[in-house]
């Protein structure tokens, strides 16, 4: 009995890893043989970013069961921390891979710390209240970065929240974070391969966390807070753990994102409310708590608008129809029954019985 269960989890996880690796191999072959449009090729790294974001948000929404609308904020912290490090160390660490790996660690760590600090007061709230407060924190993070100026010269680092002139840099000084203009000249270290490796790392962390002692504690809080407390689960500790791991992974996605662009700015479009909602849409459509679903829906919903570009005028219309159909298909009881009735497994069984 026990062996059976363990192997079921392991099998499920292996399928998820397998899908990612298979998708990677197919894309690599297509790139090598030139069967891929430059448009799609440009989408590969953002795709990895969105997949990581969706999986990490699923840890908060699906596993911990708390609605967070500030995920883009943590991504923003990671993006700027990582890009700042890379720009600062550009001349010091020459090996781009090593520099990028350190940048990723720094981005993840700083986003994790911010997640921890925000989580401490915020996780006392539940449901809608938590959603509203995380939404606000996401916006606050974005706006702080928009007024932040950091420069370096021979004397070291200079900070300001006014403008780049008040940094008081020397002649040879270099403004790294330039307020609303953000960071320019970040080395383009992000590649599809690194993106896929980061997806795998994210999956290992999230899936192994879920199927461990800590994961059970986190899910027990989701299922019944009062009962979890009554069997001695430390609610605060495990809520914070899930929330900060989720934030750290979002930070990692942010680093990947920032190293794919030559100029990084915190705009409402990339780190604002829209982004948080979009990630949430990935999670909800993929199935709350379903990690593999998050990956698939993130890929489909990112590719779809691009693939429909040819239909220009009807693009958003088709996109929204697909969204609604997917929602109905996944959640409506009648359609679930219909799906079960005509499922492949069942049809195969039937033909077997006839014979």
């Amino acid at each position, binding site marked *: 009995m*026990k062996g059976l*269960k363990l192997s079921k989890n392991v099998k499920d996880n292996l399928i998820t890893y397998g899908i990612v690796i298979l998708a990677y191999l197919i894309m690599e072959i297509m790139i090598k043989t030139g069967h891929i449009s430059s448009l799609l090729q440009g989408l590969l790294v953002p795709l990895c970013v969105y997949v990581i974001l969706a999986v990490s948000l699923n840890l908060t929404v699906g596993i911990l069961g708390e609605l967070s609308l500030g995920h883009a904020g943590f991504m923003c912290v990671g993006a700027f921390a990582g890009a700042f490090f890379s720009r600062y160390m550009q001349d010091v660490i020459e090996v781009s891979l090593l520099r990028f790996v350190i940048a990723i660690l720094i981005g993840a760590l700083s986003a994790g710390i911010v997640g921890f600090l925000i989580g401490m007061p915020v996780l006392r709230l539940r449901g809608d209240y938590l959603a509203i407060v995380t939404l606000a924190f996401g916006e606050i993070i974005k706006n702080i970065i928009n007024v932040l100026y950091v420069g370096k010269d021979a004397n070291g680092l200079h900070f300001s929240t006014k403008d780049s002139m008040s940094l008081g840099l020397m002649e040879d000084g270099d403004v790294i974070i330039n307020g609303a203009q953000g960071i320019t000249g970040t080395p383009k270290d992000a590649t599809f391969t690194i993106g896929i490796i980061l997806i795998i790392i994210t999956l290992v*962390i999230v899936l192994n*966390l879920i199927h461990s002692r800590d994961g059970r504690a986190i899910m027990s809080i989701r*299922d019944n807070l009062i009962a979890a407390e*009554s*069997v*001695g689960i430390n609610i605060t500790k495990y809520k914070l753990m899930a929330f900060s791991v989720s934030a750290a992974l979002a930070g990692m996605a942010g680093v990947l994102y920032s190293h794919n662009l030559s100029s990084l700015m915190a705009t409402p479009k990339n780190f604002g409310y829209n982004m948080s909602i979009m990630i949430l849409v990935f999670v909800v459509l993929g199935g709350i708590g379903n990690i593999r679903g998050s990956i698939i829906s993130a890929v489909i919903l990112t590719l779809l608008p691009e693939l429909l570009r040819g239909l220009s005028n009807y693009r958003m219309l088709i996109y929204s129809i697909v969204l609604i159909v997917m929602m109905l298909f996944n959640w409506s009881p009648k359609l679930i029954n219909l799906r079960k009735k005509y499922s492949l497994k069942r049809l195969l069984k039937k033909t077997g019985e006839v014979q």
Partner: protein
Amino acid sequence: MAALLEVKNLGISFGGLRAVDDFEVTIKKGQLYGLIGPNGAGKTTVFNLLTGVYKPSEGIITLDGVNITGLKTIEINKAGIARTFQNIRLFKELSVIDNVKVGLHNHYKYSTVEGIFRLPGYFKMEKAMTEKAMELLKVFELEQEADYLAANLPYGKQRKLEIARALATEPKLLLLDEPAAGMNPNETRELMDTIRFVRDNFDMTILLIEHDMKLVSGICEELTVLNFGRILAKGETAAVLNDPQVITAYLGE
């Protein structure tokens, strides 16, 4: 035998409402103790006071010589009180065995890092946890359903699983809140055997709330009757159940 639980002068008010007043009880080690009374008498409130869900307005709770008054629920569980709930509170989306493993949480430990990177500590502890959990499930005849989602269990088995989960925390005192609610006579009889078995084989002390008089008179050694938040009668089961006051207030002529 020594007293395991000693409660003195326990009381709580919700605004103007005096929910529990001057509640006292002494439960000896290994005893099966019953708490009965009409609906709204404050029985579950007493449980919530004992387990730290509510902070008592006054009174002292001593468990095994340690003062646990006003501690948090988690600390009280660690001190040795586990409970079940009147309206079943399982971890519905977790499997049956995982429900028990959550109960084992504080007794089988490995670090988060060991869990994420699947270091040897993870496999060793998970194996020990699975064994212990299966052992507990066997006691409650749930081992066949170990991989079911808890939400998919039939009602009677959900009640049993709740007891198994509470026992997994290795308590000294087990509080059962209406364990027989919604069970048919057969299931109730089975439950009585299980409760006795738990008491004998786990060296457990049990305090239970119940409306089913067959169960109460069948297994409880002593009773306390609550009415409007105050103690109406207490003592040996047979004597209490024949008390005219109890009969008028609760049992009916």
